[in-house]
């Protein structure tokens, strides 16, 4: 085969391969949501994080504003220290309320931010003071049964 046709085919092959990689990263994957966007870090202490995972989304009013980057256990307060990165476009007041929520009945867990009314905004490395733990199903059932038993006791007297 002639050299030039071979070169043409190989060039075609390489372009097709690069195109496939691009489709994979942009159409199939979520590279487009990464970008070189600026972000800042926030920290929150939670009594119980349930099944929260690193990379879980941080949402406010249902819109993804950031992601969880790190989960540590604090030996001083014996609770979970969750570090998250929020896109710089999204600034939140100092008295923002963070809670761990579940998407759907069996869905993934994420952090929900409810903005407060403070004038000063949270900065990089700041700590979210008001947090709400994940709801653990066993604890909820336990509390329900306990209340039920207490009610029954009241009725019997």
């Amino acid at each position, binding site marked *: 085969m002639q050299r030039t046709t071979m*070169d043409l085919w190989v060039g075609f*092959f390489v372009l097709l391969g690069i195109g*496939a*990689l691009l489709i*994979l*990263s942009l*159409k*199939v*994957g*979520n590279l487009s949501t990464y970008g070189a966007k600026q972000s800042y870090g926030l920290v929150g202490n939670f009594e119980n994080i349930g099944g929260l995972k690193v990379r879980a989304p941080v949402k406010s009013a249902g819109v993804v504003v950031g992601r969880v980057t790190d989960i540590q256990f604090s030996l001083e307060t014996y609770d979970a220290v969750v570090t998250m990165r929020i896109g710089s476009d999204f600034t939140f007041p100092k008295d923002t309320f963070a809670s761990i929520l579940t998407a759907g009945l069996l869905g993934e867990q994420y952090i929900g931010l409810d903005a407060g009314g403070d004038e000063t905004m949270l900065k990089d490395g700041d700590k979210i003071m008001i947090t709400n733990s994940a709801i653990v199903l066993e604890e909820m059932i336990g509390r329900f049964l306990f209340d039920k038993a207490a009610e029954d006791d009241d009725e019997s007297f």
Partner: protein
Amino acid sequence: MLKRIISGIRGIGHRVIDSTWRLGYAARFFILVLLKSTTSLRRFGLVIRELYFTGVLSLIIILVSGLFVGMVLGLQGYETLQKFGSESAVGTLVALSLVRELGPVVAALLFASRAGSAITAEIGLMKATEQLSAMGMMAVDPVARVVAPRFWAGVISMPFLAAMFSVMGVFGGYLVTVVFIGVDEGLFWSQMQNNVDFRIDIANGVIKSFFFGIAVAAIAVFEGYDAPPTAEGVSGATTRTVVTSSLAILGLDFILTAFMFRGIS
């Protein structure tokens, strides 16, 4: 009786020493190829010629198999997922299984039987017809001139082929579930994009296929170079290429997966 036992044990020892020696020889040959590849990378035309034979000519089988694998994945995934009422997750299922596992592995298996065997047969036949010795006589290093370009062509084309396989598979899954069955198109793509991560899934898949490319190409050129210079020897070497590289791909896949995806749920 005792003699027979001793000769049995001797047979085991002989086999172990033989295979260890062969493994060491293969490792030395691999390093030799790497050392001599500077010339072939400088004369890149040689690599391009081999890229045509290993990469471009493997396109048809890779694209068609990718399409069908994706279609089957879509069909089977839909059958199971619709029992739980989550048939929109079929896009995630197809994309994740293709990008993480099936794309690199199946493409590498096909590549080993399509291109690896051809490389082995070619080099083996060159050796059997003493073309390699003739090159040596003319002070042309056969490892630099024949072996290294084929090795690099295999390494370069493998990630591209795996990526094309995955894209065709996703397209096949889309075709079956969205176009034929009627899963919602928007949910199909958005679920997929939400759950396929660039760094964890796609980049690791590409790294995997790169390693498979190295393994298949190295085994193919080694078996060809090491083949006994007879018709029987070349045919045996070709068979060994396919068997060894298939096993190497699956074993490597387990090791790489254990390193990449452990601790990710």
